[in-house]
């Protein structure tokens, strides 16, 4: 049976990507997937050897054809995104790609080409194959690109007979996070012991509950504030979320990032790596 584990956090910067990379170094028979398409960082630790590039066609964009436009005003009235200015030029950033202007223009003066919103890649890494992507700057539809990389990771796992997908998720609780966790076997929440970390962990845990994905939590940098660490673990218990353990605050995370390595490679034998290994054991024993 194939399982997908998604690493999330709610709050950004709690250590999702570093911990995902450490899990990848510890796992076997695995496909790695970076679903943080908006600000992807996992490749910086994985040095992927990219075998395939694909463009991501995530939608359409409306373009007014000046020659045919009579400036009747219909499109400007109908656009709910205020994307068309008084000179009948469509602002690409505001255009949602809904096509309402295209369909209602009485002159048929609006073209609607498919828009390339990013790229996605199939790569090899020292730990196994990896699917990752890059959403274009200021683009929409990150959710669709997330869904696409997850699907490709699944196809790859099936092809290569690998039984685990480890997915690095995005921060927050919105569109790309929803697209990242739906249908996963479990989410691992990397929380940090701060008032923000606690607040955000609760929201992402609620989201996992909402989509009925079993959640587990580990506390990173736990010794920065033991009271908050305990508060997170208590809330996890109340929410029926498995507490996986604690990882100390350790500059080794920054050091390994600078080396382009996982902490497992960079600081093997350290207390931090032992803690992460222990957490990983607990996770795979559940699946």
């Amino acid at each position, binding site marked *: 049976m194939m399982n997908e584990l998604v690493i999330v956090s*709610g*709050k*950004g*910067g*709690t250590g999702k*990507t570093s911990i995902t990379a450490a899990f990848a170094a510890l796992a076997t028979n695995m496909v790695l997937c970076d679903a943080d398409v*908006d*600000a992807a*960082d996992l490749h*910086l630790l994985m040095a992927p050897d990219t075998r395939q590039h694909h463009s991501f066609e995530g*939608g*359409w964009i409306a373009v007014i054809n000046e020659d045919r436009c009579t400036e009747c005003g219909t499109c400007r009235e*109908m656009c*709910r*995104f205020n994307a068309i200015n008084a000179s009948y030029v469509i602002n690409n*950033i505001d255009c*949602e*790609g*809904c*096509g*309402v202007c295209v*369909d*209602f223009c009485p002159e048929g003066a609006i073209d609607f080409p498919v828009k390339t919103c990013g790229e996605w890649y199939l790569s090899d890494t020292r730990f196994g194959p990896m699917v990752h992507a890059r*959403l274009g*700057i*200021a*683009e*929409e539809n*990150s*959710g669709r690109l997330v869904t696409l990389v997850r699907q490709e990771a699944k196809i790859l796992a099936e092809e290569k007979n690998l039984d685990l997908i480890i997915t690095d998720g*995005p*921060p*927050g*609780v*919105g*569109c*790309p996070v*929803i*697209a990242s966790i739906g249908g996963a076997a479990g989410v691992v929440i990397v929380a*940090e*012991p*701060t*008032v*923000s*970390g606690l*607040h*955000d962990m609760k*929201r992402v845990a*609620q*989201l996992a509950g*909402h*989509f009925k994905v079993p959640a587990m939590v580990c506390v990173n940098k736990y010794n*920065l*504030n033991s009271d*908050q660490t305990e508060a997170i673990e208590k809330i996890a218990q109340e929410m029926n979320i498995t507490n996986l353990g604690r990882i100390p605050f350790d*500059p080794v995370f*920054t050091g390994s*990032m*600078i080396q*382009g390595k996982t902490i497992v490679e960079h600081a093997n034998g350290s207390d931090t790596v032992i803690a992460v290994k222990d957490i990983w054991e607990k996770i795979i024993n559940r699946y």
Partner: protein
Amino acid sequence: MIISVASGKGGTGKTTVATNLAYTLGTGVQVLDCDVEEPNAHLFLKPNIEQNESVYTIVPEIHKYRCSFCRKCAEICRFRAIAVMNEVILTFPELCHSCGGCFAVCPENAVAEKGRELGMIEKGRAGDLDFVHGRLRVGEAMSPPLIKRVRSYTREELITIIDAPPGTSCPVIAAMKGADYVLMVTEPTPFGLNDLKLAVEAVKLLNIPCGLVINRSDMGDRRVTDYAEQENIAVLMEIPFERRIAEAYSKGRLIVEVLPGWKEKFLELYRCIEKQINSGNLR
């Protein structure tokens, strides 16, 4: 004046910079927390919430007795939020982008407007500060319309400080567009640098002047500084890693509360921003 505090990478210190800057300036300032997926500024500013409102977006509801199953609504919807099969019509409100196409195209007047709750806006005061934040409903995917609603509370006579969400896609754009200045907060690590570059691209696209704060400035390498130099982006402030700062943050306290000496540094940060805006230099 609108200053949007953004970063690309999450957890670099956007909220820390936004709240300390706002608190230091005090009177005549409003804070709009536009990180509606995970709003945190209130944990530090502890505002007194005086008003709240639920925010809805418009989605279709089909009056089945009027529907002739002509499929026009399903055809115009690029977001696959309406499906028609024989004499069955289904809507998927969570996929709807509220473009209004289905209402306009229906020949039978069978598509009615219904609300989908995006989340909540809370408004209040924190000492001298005006405070507004949005809180996306857990399970709701679309944050930009809620961010735009938070921004509709902008008061032009005040200095508006926006706490933006991480990333570089539509929610960040919604939190930066139309700002007079983008203050970017990063950390000097490879992740910080990679995401900073993406954020700078977004700011360039919007043509807004920007400057940089480097947080935990002594935990990493020189590459962020080199990049800033090469791109001609002014480094306006550096905050070294200090256990006292990290602990204060963990408890929901401001740097300027526990280390009052930082007030002068945040004032100086504001003066640099003001100077750069007035000089008309983008970077």
